[in-house]
């Protein structure tokens, strides 16, 4: 998610590079994240967070999520039920990735938000 001071204005979809069941695991290639970070710099935006979905499952921050996260970004988990958005939560892990505090997540008017397809 790219934006300025905690407000996401662009969501850039990245490929799930996990080898295995894509419905319950995800991995982001660092080089993909690097490319997004460069894109953000070019457009005067910041990489503020990383989102992923939990298909047919609650939007909780799992142990897997925590262990493979970092304290630098907000982590938005989106619960998708039967292919449709159900709810989302945002978390911020601590530096040692032992705890993630929930963050407030507010939704803008959907019409104003942009979704970039890459």
């Amino acid at each position, binding site marked *: 998610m790219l934006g300025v001071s905690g407000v996401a204005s662009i969501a850039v979809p990245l490929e799930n590079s996990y080898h295995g069941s894509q419905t319950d695991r*995800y991995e982001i290639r660092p*080089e993909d994240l690097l490319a997004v970070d460069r894109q953000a710099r070019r457009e005067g935006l910041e990489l503020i967070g990383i989102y992923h979905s939990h298909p047919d499952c609650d939007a909780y921050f799992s142990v897997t999520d925590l262990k493979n*996260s*970092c304290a*630098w970004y907000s982590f938005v988990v989106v619960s998708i039920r039967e292919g449709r958005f159900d709810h989302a939560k945002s978390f911020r892990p601590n530096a040692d990735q032992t705890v993630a505090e929930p963050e407030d997540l507010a939704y803008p008017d959907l019409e104003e938000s942009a979704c970039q397809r890459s």
Partner: protein
Amino acid sequence: MPKILIPTPLRQYAGNQSEVELSGGTVGELLDALSRQHAELRRHLYSDQGKLRSFVNVYVNDEDIRHLAKEATPVSAQDTISIVPSIAGGATAPAETATLSKEEILRYSRHLIIPEIGMEGQLKLKQAKVLLIGAGGLGSPLALYLAAAGVGRIGLVDFDVVDFTNLQRQVIHATADVGRKKLDSAIESMSAINPHVTLDRFDTALTSENALEILKDYDIVVDGTDNFPTRYLVNDACVLLGKPNVYGSIFRFEGQATVFAYRGGPCYRCLYPEPPPPGLVPSCAEGGVLGILPGLIGLVQATEAVKLITGIGEPLVGRLLLYDALAMRFRELKLRRDPECPVCGDHPTVRELIDYHQFCGVPRGGQAPAGLKEGEMDVTELKVKIDRGDRFILVDVREPHEFQICSIPGSVLIPLGELSKRTGELNPASEIVVHCKSGGRSARAVEFLKKSGFENVSNLAGGILAWSDKVDPRVPKY
């Protein structure tokens, strides 16, 4: 001077700069200089032990330093250094956030105090999803022990009903369960042993149409089936979905077990590329099985399932375990993945599920035979012929030990295996009726006799079991 790009969230610790220029000959020197200049930054990049945090990736231009000389990677004045975290995650199961309750800790205490399992292993078991195909001989011990061990989610696939012949080995079902669905009886037993386990019922035969949908949500598939079409179906579905197939099979006093389709290991088709000719390998219903045997083989499968879940020990991959109860010996055969295997080979030709009944050359089970086929005689007609005093020969092609259990009065015992040597005992001019237990072996006997010049031969449909059902209920079924 080389330039370090600071990730947005870390800029606050680097004087709000988005890039910093520093002098240094290697990546390590640059990062060290950076974190000396901005002490707060250090904590975000390095662990307390002074190592780069595991999620921190450092790129020199477009190259990950892990693929170069790591922190000793040299940098020149034109280079740009980027810091990128590794990110991954996923929803393994909602149970993941849960821990063990006090009651569960007590229940699993003997696991928890084994260092190899411990809390970590027990939580893995709790998060595991295992699918059992069949709630019969192998399925009984599997279901009971996997439930007791605390596997969090167990799916059971079975469409059958408990009958008296099951009770000698299918210990999950009790005498009072005869006539009930095996699923109902098994699930009741499992919940009684461990109410913490979530149980999924699949009251159906596994078919090419439903297999992928049923298997997809499980981590491990355990094959407790007794027929070749389903074995090939389970194998192919597991290979296609990338799920391990914990295999076991039993016959009389001998059993086999192995783990197929696990991390580059062989699959069932690497071992048996082609099914045996129909009728050549008898099923347990035809050939019998020592009741204890599925207990032992099923528990070898259960052990392998628990090992795969917890990641301990050496999985039974690439090894076929052979067990002989009479000799009380275990042997092992090495198995290798066949690069030419049509399913798991280097150039697979089977990319979706096929018609496995056709592949194995056997008729689809579960369908009532539509009337008599040509050359078959109904048991009631045989009764009429006997009562009328017709002259004909009734040949029983079962084994002598089966004949001892029960027989139809007036029948002559010529076991199928001896028939070719003993045709001289039969008059080709007479009418001959052949029977066995349920009609399979006698059909082969009729075919053989017709080829040998006997013209007036018929097969007793349904065998002595049908005789017991429709004519004489005093004849015991077995």
